[in-house]
């Protein structure tokens, strides 16, 4: 599937920011055999004094920019065409949990895709007894790693209320879980914590989701959103499998990948400290238009 994607993020400050340095992870990833970027333009207003393209430890593309002069507003505008062709996973064969542990231990590398990065605590996801208890109810004797991924996504989709007003970008997984509400970021963080607690290496994926309007309705312009889901390592044979707990489905061509990491902090779209006292307002609009 080919998509035209338009993403606009803008920040308005009460007081002009004197300087700022930001790390942006907005560009869709180029992933061999999964996704290719046909064309892409990232326009930034006002123009930054410094702008450098780089890639991070996990192989994500990032743009670092810096301002040295006062500015009251920043707008990031990304326009791109992406060819998404998620491979058909067929039947996913994965070991049961005790065997999965052995398969993880047999991996002798710390390369970016190694499961060893995705088992311990990460900046935003730490061990949580209450989520371990939740997982314990879901897990069945002899369950395979992939079955657990499916079962957890299903359980969370059933038990959690999707509520954009309930949480913010800084809400901890524990808090969102206690309220059983949140957005895709919270769903993903909670599922990651549950999986890691059960010994399944799990990470975070940021991206876009094609939304399909209700029957007979037009697609609303700008109404799409950035999205997040989970990737889990389901053994040496299956490798990484991506799953969307917010929508309870296996990730396929409707999901366009931007970046992959341990949790949100590794992939947050705009990072950066502002030397300003005033409050800031963020606006975001996303259009994901399928071209077929």
């Amino acid at each position, binding site marked *: 599937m080919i998509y035209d994607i338009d993403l606009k993020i803008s920040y308005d400050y009460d007081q002009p920011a004197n300087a700022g340095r930001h790390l942006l992870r907005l560009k869709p990833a180029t992933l061999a055999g999964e996704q290719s970027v046909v064309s892409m333009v990232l326009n930034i207003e006002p123009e930054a004094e410094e702008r450098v393209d780089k890639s991070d430890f996990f192989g994500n593309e990032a743009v670092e920019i810096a301002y040295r002069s006062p500015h009251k507003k920043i707008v990031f505008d990304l326009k791109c065409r992406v060819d998404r062709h998620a491979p058909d996973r067929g039947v996913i064969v994965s070991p049961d949990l005790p065997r999965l542990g052995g398969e993880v231990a047999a991996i*002798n590398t710390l390369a970016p895709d*190694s499961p060893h990065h995705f088992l311990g605590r990460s900046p935003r996801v730490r061990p949580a007894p209450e989520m371990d208890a939740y997982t314990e109810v879901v897990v069945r004797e002899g369950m395979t790693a992939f079955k657990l991924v499916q079962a957890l996504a299903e359980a969370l989709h059933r038990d959690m209320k999707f509520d954009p007003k309930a949480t913010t970008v800084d809400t901890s997984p524990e808090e969102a879980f206690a309220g059983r509400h949140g957005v895709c970021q919270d769903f993903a963080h909670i599922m990651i914590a549950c999986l890691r607690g059960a010994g399944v290496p799990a990470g975070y994926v940021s991206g876009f989701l094609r939304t399909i309007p209700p029957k007979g309705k037009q697609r609303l312009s700008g109404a799409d959103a950035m999205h997040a889901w989970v990737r889990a390592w389901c053994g040496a044979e299956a490798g990484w499998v991506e799953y969307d707990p917010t929508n309870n489905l296996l990730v396929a061509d409707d999901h366009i990948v931007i970046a992959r990491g341990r949790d949100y902090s590794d992939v*947050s779209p705009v*990072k*950066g400290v502002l030397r300003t006292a005033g409050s800031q307002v963020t606006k975001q609009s996303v259009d994901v238009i399928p071209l077929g």
Partner: protein
Amino acid sequence: MSPQSKRWGEAGARSLDSYKPLAGVADELVDASGSVRPVWRKFIDHFQRLPADEITLRFARGDQYLRDAGVYFRQYGKAGSAERDWPLSHIPVLIHENEWKQISEGLVQRAELLESVVADLYGPNRLVAEGHLPPSLIGMSKEWLRPLVGVHPRSGHYLSFIAFEIGRGPDGNWWVLGDRTQAPSGAGFALENRIATARVFSEFYPAANVYRLAGFFQTFRDALRGLRGSTEDQVAILTPGLWNDTYFEHAYIARYLGLMLLEGEDLTVEKGRVMVRTVAGLAPVSVLWSRLDASYADPLELDERSRLGTPGIVDAIRRANLTMVNALGSGVLETRALLAFLPRIQALKGEPLKLSNIATWWCGQETEREHVRANIKRMMVGPALSTRPPFEPDGRTVLGGRFEQETLQTVDSYLDTDGAMLVGQEAVTLSTTPAFVNGELVPRPMSIRVFLARTSNGWQVMPGGYARIGRTEDATAIAMQRGGSVADVWVVSDFPVEAVTMLPPDGATYRRSESGVLPSRAADNLYWLGRYVERAEDIMRLLRAYHMRLAETANSNAPLLRLLEDHLQTFDVLDMEECVPESLRATIASAIHSASQVRDRFSIDGWSALNDLAKTARQMVDTARPGDDAARAMSVLLRKITGFSGLVHENMYRSVGWRFLSMGRSLERALTMTSALEKFLDSKAPEGALDLAVEIGDSSMTHRSRYAVASNRKTVIDLLALDAQNPRSVLYHLAELREHAEQLATVLAKHQLSVFSHTVRVAHADLAAGSPETLDSAGLQTLGQSIETLSDVLSSEYLT
């Protein structure tokens, strides 16, 4: 004569009968047969001859030095943090140089080993690939910083300044208890312990053949300078700031080595270069000796919550424009579980460890876990990823098969469920060393932190160290956490040692290279220190004037008193019943706060004077009574605060920093004088207000000698606003400011005209052309505004 006294010494010396080392524990002072070891003999002989009251006196002398130097210990408790007296155990630990040489060789070997391990972990990762290190352990460590993977340090080395915690086991051999590779503290404290201990034993120390510490620091400073990209670049110490428990040490070392002390906010990154904001603009920094936890160094690429770091610093390192000492991420070597693997990794090099580390088993491996289980009685089990030494347990700890804290879980199931997160370590017993407790020497367990610096000639070991002394005789390592004291370590030679100081050989005093390298934040603190001190003095003068008149009239409703009360309100003095008002103490506290952030550029005497002032003011709160008593109290405080000003004026080097301090003082004085004149010279002001203005301006005598007439508005304005010779007048201080501004513009090589310099020249010229007639109420108000403007211009030109 008993055999004991024969052994312990001659007539006049106290016996060591009461010194009884524990069975099964090595002792530093005496050997297994009970004889004093040769290295201690002279010292013990000297000490045991000192009369008891002399010992008390000498110990007090050492403690006094530490207090005067401002060495304290910050303790964090439930009620926040508190400063406590530095817990010096005055008896040093003595080690013979031959033994020290062996220790040093072992530690240098270990330093090389650690360098090769960290280079591999951030480089090719062969140790993991070849099965010598478990990947899960590294993958789970929060000290393994992924953004630094593949980044080769521009100096070629990851480690340049490290420390090892060592202790002596029951068999007499030394053990490494832990590796400190991130930002080891204690070297500065070791220096202070040395100075204090040398004072306690002032006759004995000079001839005791004890290796000096200065050479080590000197060599390391030179090594740091050698790492610069260009000789124009700055070398600085990066500190988390005032609230860090070892901030004193950062400031102390910065002052001692003549390096800048910076915080993250002093720095900015431009095109991959790290720059410090100074009063002369941005200056490049290419070497940072960091005392900050690595993950806080850059909120953009590392811990995003950090407010202590500098965005972009990782990128500067990646572009090989900055050397961090040590390289960011070196802290991963402190991971406790690594101790289980290091001996084997060293053995791969074909040479075993010269100095063993404490036996450690990672419970993430089945064989090792079962070994720990089978030998649980002589094990300490704790978190595998902890980066603290064994005697600083964190998390749940199992000792001798039992949990330290109450828990429902059994040790067996803990090993099963949490194995990968646990290590078992042999519960080591440390050697004991003498401490002076309740009038006698008693054995106390100790461990030593030893410091190593990389220099152009390879690793150098500081000949000495930072010893920790246990509070009780319990010699298990874990007991060290519960309070205790610290001691100096003397490495003793059989022959006289070379005396080294930080002074260069030609005898000229070493001086921080000046001109323009003053960080803006430091300048800001000095400027505000000047302002706060001046403001405090002004409040004191006003209060003294108030209470003197109150004592005369006993009527707080007298017009003049009401006028003073009204004027004091502009300084937030709201309750005249309060003799030492809250706002005065708060102003002094603000001065101290400013001073505490520039401790590295500030004399110890000045610091003591300020703290003494604050203490006296605090004590007076409960005792001072309105009227005569409060007036006298203010006189005492005024003497103390002018004592501080005198110290600054007489003793401080005429540096750029001194100019900012002086400008703060002049600006505040000009401002408060102008506002006092506005108030007291108002046409509606009651009788006596003119004399009051002269008194507050501390110019009563001058007025009498200069003017034959009684005070009138003209004479007062003339003396306090327009007299260029009166150090209390507004014009005098504008002239001072003009002079400072011009000097600054010259020193800082401002080629174009400095805006501040221009503004202050105009303000000065305007006032100099003024007369008592032009300085009416409106004229004074305009003057006050123009002085306020000066402060703003100064701030925007130099301080931000």
